[in-house]
């Protein structure tokens, strides 16, 4: 198969030769490796890559992926990182209006009765910058003679991949992991990996989040080898019976297709500290399930006591030799909707939450583990118990950290199409995507699927969120259905259905609003509400703000169906640059890069300044969230 530039224009082409999304578990060769969190199956490709930049697809270095191509003109770039922060391409902040506003006239393919599919819209887009990346690697000895896959944790916004000149695959969805099998193209010694990253594709219509518009390989890249018998996927269901004292443990395991012929076995243990709850050995099959293991006097997981059981799965070959060992932390908790109130472990849930964009004033959305750890300290210090991953999946490490720190997650998939239905403040969905367009449903369902399949085992996730501000139609209803079909243990969330109430019964288990004044919330709760109420975004903390928070928290005492919400938002989006006048480092925001159209200082609505120092308002959040920290 050959790479085709037209995929950029086709909303129905969003993954080519990608491996299906699966659980984000890690695996190790030995128990010692597991304890050291260092897997010899893994080879990081982070670091310096060769790089060439082109302003348009037509100017890109065609054929650069071939080992014998001329790479004289290639410079260097750091991976992970944004192209625009590496000295190529203009920084741009815009909120709702698409980045091509006023420059190019675009309407989504198949919207407004279009039957052409709009060929050339992005493949010939004069604003579609291209980054050509090259990386040479030699497999570590530990990875040789194995099946080897490559994992891209985040590439914005569309990527083509080659190995040693052979086309491997194509991916969209900037914020989900993209995985490809490299095995057929690997060679002994040096290998040449080539990635072509386009800033725009049909995915641009689906990624209109209120943020700086970056491109490039902005999250880690790694090679991962797999042993002959390998656990591809696991599904943990750590349920709690309605007595709230008995755990009900279920496990689904998927191995490679030929696992059954290998004579291999799986040794599954579940421990609470030193106490062994489950110790079972089963023959390896392509699909194996361990169901309904009762756990009496189960130690429940919640914000105040995020207790985790230790699941360990050892894959042993026919002779009993360890092939791989997979650890996973398991939290038993029960999320349910009872008498129209959301309960966690039988108690009414109160969300003292924040919306958190991944942001680092030096690195943009390419955040570090240190950023995440710092953020959790802030959460803990100020009684923040919940986070909405606005409006895309975050780095995988964040979910593990939330498990361990008892942070309730509203796990949002990567979707925002604000610019297709809200114009100049008016609701105007004439060319809304995905809407009910069949040609766009595959792409958004894929985003829901990636989000679910990757993160399904994290106890921290209480809600799946279908995305943000994308209006409502059949396609988003199908996303809601997908989550419910696959997960009985969590609730769905979507605010945008309030713009098209026809879908109220099909979309979102909760009534969610953004920026409703307290009075409007009272009106809802006073008039026979059908769903519990959540503020997915409230207390807009732009500049010197966050006044009158008690008008919201008072509702907690007055209405059982009011369940709190998520402050907008956690951190200002601004970037460190050197002042063109003084040479001193200064923080700059939207519009400061000659970027137009811009929404300027609207990029800063955080509880923290962009450098992560707290705004004065944080002490108020701390007070009220502390007051309702139950």
């Amino acid at each position, binding site marked *: 198969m050959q790479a085709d530039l037209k995929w950029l224009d086709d909303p129905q082409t969003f993954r080519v030769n990608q491996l299906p999304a699966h659980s984000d578990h890690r695996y190790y060769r030995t128990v010692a490796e597991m304890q050291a969190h260092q897997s010899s199956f893994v080879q990081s490709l982070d670091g310096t890559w060769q790089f060439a930049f082109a302003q348009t697809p037509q100017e890109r270095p065609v054929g650069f992926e071939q080992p014998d191509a001329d790479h004289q003109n290639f410079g260097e770039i750091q991976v992970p990182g944004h192209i625009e922060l590496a000295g190529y391409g203009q920084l741009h902040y815009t909120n709702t209006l698409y980045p091509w506003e006023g420059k190019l006239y675009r309407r989504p393919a198949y919207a407004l009765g279009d039957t052409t599919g709009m060929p050339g819209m992005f493949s010939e887009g004069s604003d579609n910058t291209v980054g050509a990346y090259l990386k040479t690697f030699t497999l570590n000895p530990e990875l040789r003679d194995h099946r080897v896959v490559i994992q891209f944790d985040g590439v914005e916004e569309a990527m083509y991949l080659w190995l040693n000149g052979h086309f491997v695959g194509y991916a969209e969805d900037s914020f989900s992991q993209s995985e490809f099998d490299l095995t057929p193209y690997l060679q002994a010694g040096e290998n040449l990996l080539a990635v072509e990253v386009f800033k725009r594709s049909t995915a641009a219509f689906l990624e209109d989040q209120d943020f700086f518009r970056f491109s490039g390989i902005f999250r880690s890249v790694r090679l991962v080898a797999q042993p002959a018998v390998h656990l591809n996927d696991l599904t943990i269901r750590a349920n709690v019976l309605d007595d709230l004292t008995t755990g009900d443990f279920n496990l689904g395991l998927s191995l490679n297709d030929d696992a059954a012929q290998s004579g291999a076995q799986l040794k599954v243990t579940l421990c609470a500290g030193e106490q062994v709850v489950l110790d079972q050995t089963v023959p390896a099959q392509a699909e194996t399930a361990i169901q309904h293991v009762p756990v009496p006097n189960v130690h429940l997981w919640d914000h105040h006591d995020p207790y985790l059981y230790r699941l360990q799965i050892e894959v042993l070959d026919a002779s009993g030799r360890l092939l791989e060992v997979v650890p996973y932390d398991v939290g038993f908790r029960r999320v349910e909707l009872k008498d129209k109130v959301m309960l966690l472990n039988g108690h009414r849930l109160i969300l003292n939450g924040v919306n958190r964009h991944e942001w680092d004033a030096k690195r943009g959305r390419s955040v570090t583990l240190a950023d995440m750890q710092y953020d959790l300290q802030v959460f803990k210090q100020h009684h923040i118990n919940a986070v909405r991953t606005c409006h895309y999946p975050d780095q995988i490490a964040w979910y593990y950290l939330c498990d361990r720190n008892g942070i309730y997650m509203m796990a949002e998939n990567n979707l925002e199409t604000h610019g297709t239905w809200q114009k100049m403040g008016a609701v105007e969905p004439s060319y809304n995507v995905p809407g009910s367009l069949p040609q766009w449903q595959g792409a958004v369902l894929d985003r829901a699927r990636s989000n679910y399949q990757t993160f399904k085992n994290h106890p921290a996730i209480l809600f799946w969120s279908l995305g943000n501000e994308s209006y409502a139609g059949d396609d988003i209803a199908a996303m809601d259905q997908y989550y419910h079909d696959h997960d009985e243990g969590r609730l769905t969330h979507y605010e945008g259905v309030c713009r098209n109430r026809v879908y109220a019964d099909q979309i979102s288990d909760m009534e969610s609003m953004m*920026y409703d004044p307290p009075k409007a919330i009272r009106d809802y709760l006073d008039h026979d509400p059908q769903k519990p109420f959540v503020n997915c975004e409230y207390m*807009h903390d732009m*500049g*010197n*703000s*966050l006044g009158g928070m008690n008008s919201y928290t008072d509702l907690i005492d007055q209405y059982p169906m009011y369940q709190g919400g998520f402050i907008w938002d956690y951190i200002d989006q601004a970037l460190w640059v050197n002042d063109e006048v003084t040479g001193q480092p*200064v923080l700059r925001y939207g519009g400061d890069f000659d970027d137009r159209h811009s929404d300027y200082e609207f990029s800063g609505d955080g509880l923290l*300044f962009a450098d992560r120092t707290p705004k004065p308002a944080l002490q108020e959040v701390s007070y009220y969230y502390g007051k309702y920290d139950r």
Partner: protein
Amino acid sequence: MANTTAKLHVVYGDGTLGLHGEGFQYIFSYDRGGLESLKRNGKEWLYRVPKPTFWRATTDNDRGNHFSERSAMWLGADLFSPCTHIEVAVNGQDITLPIATENNRYSDHETAETVTIRFTYTTTTVPATTVVVSYTVDATGAIRVHTHFTGQPGLPELPALGLRFVMPTAAQGFTYHGLSGETYPDRMAGGQLGDYQVTGLPVTPYMVPQECGMHMATEHVTVTRAITLNNADPDTEPFSLTFTQADQPFNFSCLPYTAEELENATHIEELPPLRRTVLTVFGAVRGVGGIDSWGADVEAKYHLPADRDYDFEFVIAGTQG
């Protein structure tokens, strides 16, 4: 321990009224329309006469709900409201304004228990209203400052109401007894009462400079400076001045800039070099709001309607502090 025998010395000048005592020397200017010199132990505390203040640098929420547009009149009033009337009282009795030639009947050794001087400012708004600032000085050098705003129907809501003191040099910092952090009427629940020390004159680094640094419900604040503009005073020993509550706690901010200077900047680095101290005592503070930043108003109970009177009072502590 107050020296009960001390007298307040009064100098009935041709353009000013001087009030002196042990360790203090105050000069009220008739043509400048206010307290022109507040000298303590030889150190000057005023750069220009204190003036009523009505403006606050537009917050993002103010911009979003068009508050500054509706109340723009108060920006002019903040900058330009003239002093239109002055009255003096000695020991509680009003006297004829002691300017030439009326003051020819006084001597070089006039004293009083207390002297009050009242400055009336007429706002440049349409319709106009008045603010009366009264300074009552006693022999200890304590100045009781009372401000009265006369409500006037037909005026837009006030962005702020206070009395602004611009000091000649930037302070080293200030200490206060009040609430932690920065507080506003609708954002003070998290503030904890205590003694706090602030180093320097921090401007809260909002991306767009705006109203900041408010401290509600304050018992007293002490500003400390180390340098003066006096060319004959090379001394850099720190010296302080304390503002304290009268009967009720007061609100204040202590920044290096006026509301207008903050208003003009789109980034913090555009603000001028740190040069002065701007201490403002606020008699009324508008809330900051927080529902959204593109239209939602501050909750009604935190507005400052201009059709009602406001009174506030505080004391600049005397030398026996």
